[in-house]
């Protein structure tokens, strides 16, 4: 077996990211879409952590932490919007959220 290099982590990250993309593209339950976004964020974090280790520089981790913070904020607001939406429309189907257009 080859030793584990950053490329391994990057491939893992890319795969996870693509899973997230697929989730976003294919699911219509908005909560699950959100969760897919979380997956993507995690993929990014893996990337950051991998490079951090690679470059012996903790800045990558710092940015991963910021990503976590932003994710938390995003989740809070997003879920708040979802709740408000659900209260009005009794559905979580993203296809029905289409009034924001011309």
């Amino acid at each position, binding site marked *: *077996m080859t*030793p*584990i290099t*950053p*490329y*391994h*982590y990057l*491939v*893992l990250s*890319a*795969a996870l990211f*693509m*899973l*997230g993309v*697929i989730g976003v*593209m*294919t*699911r*219509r*339950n908005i*909560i*699950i879409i*959100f*969760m897919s976004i*979380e*997956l993507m964020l*995690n993929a990014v*974090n*893996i990337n950051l*952590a*991998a490079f*951090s*280790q*690679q470059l*012996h520089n*903790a800045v990558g*981790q*710092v940015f991963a*932490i*910021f990503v*976590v*913070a*932003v*994710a*938390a*904020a*995003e*989740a*809070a*607001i997003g*879920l*708040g919007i*979802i*709740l*408000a939406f659900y*209260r009005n429309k009794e*559905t*979580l*189907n993203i*296809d029905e959220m289409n009034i924001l257009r011309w």
Partner: protein
Amino acid sequence: MFESILFYTLAAFILGFGVLVVTARNTVHCVVFLVANFLCVAMIYVMLGAEFLAIIQVLVYAGGIVVLYLFVVMLVNLKRGPDAAPDRRRQSRVGFVLAAVMLAEISAILVYSAARPASAVAAAAATPLQTVGNTEVVGMLLYTDYLIPFEVASMLLLVAMIGAILLAKKEI
């Protein structure tokens, strides 16, 4: 050797749980898989020498954010998920295909570049692993060089909190 086994196992779990998250019918199950996924990612972090990040991952992501999801799922408590509705635009398949092709492309790029002679990145990787990820280092960075982003992030969280309260309240 041990590291390789660990990595591949974890990678398998991560991707497996990821697939489950994306495909599971039941939203609650989705959440459970997501948690599992995150815990595995946390272990990846430990492998990468980022203990603090791993702890944060568990504490904030698994212990905080996902609980929030679970709450919302239970509050909403849908009888019939939206995915049961017909997909009128056939978009999901296009998305799926696109994503798969892109993954292939990225992998190709990575493999292609990995095959090339050692670049600076590779040279750096060759140096022995250090415990760069210890908490003190991260803390020092956060509170010195990245103090302002840190404060901005905290402000962002505060705003998000207030916004969430406003959004979720029935009448203001």
